[in-house]
């Protein structure tokens, strides 16, 4: 446990917490998890009949915030679940990663599935939930199957099912899959999907805590959030909190992709400098220079090199430079990247993935894509940039879910930081960047 309350950014380091078994042989096997003290926490809780309220207090103290992107305090979210009512209550793990550049939950499922399961069991104990689902996106089929195997192992070992470890507590868990819809990462769309419907977000209120799956109380959390829980209960909320920085307790897995030498996941203490994380990923490839970074997935604002190089990777650190941590999905772009082309691809993504429910998003994302497409095709008009900003501002804040806001973010931030490139493309019908073909 760290001695001092605040660890300076320069001393922040790699800290495998959710990915604790990744470096071991047969990492996903239950025996591997047991060998590092796995499932001991839930055993202790059930043996000593620790009060759920005391455990919830530790989650609150830990400063854990939702790792799926919204960053909502987990302890607070869990406290919204109603107590003392009869019937089923649901707990859902959101493994519907689909935001470009995000692949951290894949690794937790692949290497350390039992820590997710133990985190869900502890969560179910705290919130008195009876049934859980882990909703895994359809594109990683082998992880969906392997998580099903992990559930079977846990059930066989007596950690899931009726009267867990001969206590009075029962909870069962199932793996379910999506089949190609980014929007199902939105928690109410995910609930609709589990009910066997189109993944269209629900209007809130009522919130899932009172009206979730089949109208029953439901709590949805991200995979990394659940995987953090056993550690927090084992070592205490304060210890977890102190791994990070103010307003950002604990560790975070950063998915680094794009123009780096070694794309991959790095689980580190929150508050680590961006520059250190870039080093861990092997630096910019081909000896080139950094141009810009999308720090938390495309729904977080683009940051130019000189600003991100000074930033620390935590909620406040990125908010200070006008962006956010999101899901910790860093897309790194070198100096041969044409920003107009990247924005075209991102705008197509939001157009393709809009669920079509709210007019501003359904129509607006199509407008944005078509305008950028015509710029790329050499038919851009000088007032297209103000039109793009206008359409984006009219999507933002006018939709049921956050996909509308998310779609506007890249448009506004790309133009803000690289307006010159956009203007050049419109005037000359070609990119001012010599994109490398190698």
């Amino acid at each position, binding site marked *: 446990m760290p001695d001092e309350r605040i660890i300076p950014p320069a001393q922040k380091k790699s800290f495998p917490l959710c990915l604790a078994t990744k470096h071991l042989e047969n990492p996903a096997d239950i025996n591997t998890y047991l060998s590092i003290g796995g499932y001991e926490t839930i055993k202790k809780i059930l043996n000593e009949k620790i009060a759920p309220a005391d455990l919830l207090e530790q989650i609150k103290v830990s400063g854990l915030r939702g790792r799926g992107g919204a960053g909502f305090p987990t302890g607070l979210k869990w406290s919204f679940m109603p107590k003392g009512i009869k019937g*089923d209550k649901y707990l859902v793990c959101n493994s519907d*990663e*689909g*935001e*470009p*550049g*995000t*692949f951290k*939950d*894949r690794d937790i499922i692949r290497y350390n599935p039992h820590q997710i399961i133990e985190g869900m069991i502890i969560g179910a104990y705290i919130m008195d939930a009876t049934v859980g*689902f882990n909703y895994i*996106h*359809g*594109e*990683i*089929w*082998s992880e969906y199957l392997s998580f099903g195997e992990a559930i079977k192992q846990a059930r066989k070992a007596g950690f899931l099912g009726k009267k867990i470890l001969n206590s009075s507590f029962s909870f069962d868990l*199932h793996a*379910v*899959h*999506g*089949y*190609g*819809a*980014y929007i199902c990462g939105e928690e109410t769309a995910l609930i609709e*999907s*589990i*009910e*066997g*419907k*189109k*993944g269209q977000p629900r209007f809130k209120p009522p919130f899932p805590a009172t009206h979730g799956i*089949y109208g029953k109380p439901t709590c949805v959390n991200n995979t990394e959030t659940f995987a953090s829980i056993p550690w927090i209960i084992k070592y205490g909320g304060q210890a977890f909190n102190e791994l990070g920085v103010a307003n950002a307790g604990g560790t975070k897995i950063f*998915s*680094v*992709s*794009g*123009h780096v030498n070694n*794309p*991959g*996941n790095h689980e580190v203490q929150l508050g680590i400098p961006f520059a250190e994380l870039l080093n861990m990923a092997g630096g910019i490839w081909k000896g080139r220079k950094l141009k810009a970074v*999308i720090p938390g997935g*495309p729904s977080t604002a683009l940051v130019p090199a000189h600003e991100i190089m000074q930033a620390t990777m935590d909620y406040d650190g990125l908010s200070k430079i006008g962006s956010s941590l999101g899901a910790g*999905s860093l*897309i*790194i*772009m070198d100096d041969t*990247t044409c920003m107009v*082309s*990247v924005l075209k*691809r*991102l705008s197509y*993504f939001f157009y*393709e*993935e809009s*669920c079509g429910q709210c007019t501003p998003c359904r129509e607006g994302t199509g407008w944005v894509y078509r305008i950028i497409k015509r710029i790329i095709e050499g038919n851009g008009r000088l007032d297209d940039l103000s039109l793009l900003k206008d359409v984006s501002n009219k999507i933002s804040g006018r939709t049921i879910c956050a996909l509308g806001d998310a779609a506007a973010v890249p448009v506004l931030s790309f133009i803000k930081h690289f307006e010159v490139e956009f203007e050049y493309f419109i005037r000359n019908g070609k990119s001012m960047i010599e994109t490398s*073909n190698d």
Partner: protein
Amino acid sequence: MTTLSKIITKKIDNELLKYPKDQKKSAVMAALQFVQAEEGWLSNDNIGEVAKYLDIPEIAVMEVATFYNMYDLKPIGKYKLSICTNVSCMLRGVDSLVSHVKNTLNIDFNQITHDGKFCLKESECMGNCDAAPMMVINNEKMHEKLTPEKFDSIIKELK
């Protein structure tokens, strides 16, 4: 009587165990996946059969089949090759890979080769971006860090 195969109905029955007895609709995503894995794609008859088996309206099944983009409502040939072209893959050269694939197979996205063997699909992010560029075959088998040479050898092995 259903025309769904026994293998499929058994799989659907297993899936139904995950949900309350009065919520059979929840199994629709999995049921469609089972049928598609066996048939290759989902015909209107397949949709009707799934609806009948789960005791829900046909339109409810159709809504799901049309909303989620890994379901195919048209024949896709023997092998569906889905290539992610989103930003992380784009930065790792997927565009030139896609040109190579299109030239090699002599088809564009959403087309099937003359021999009915391959269909090419453009996909959104598959959440596997450290392995860019990548391709999934028939929604299940992931091929990572693709190069034109690697693609050629994968195709050669597919009979």
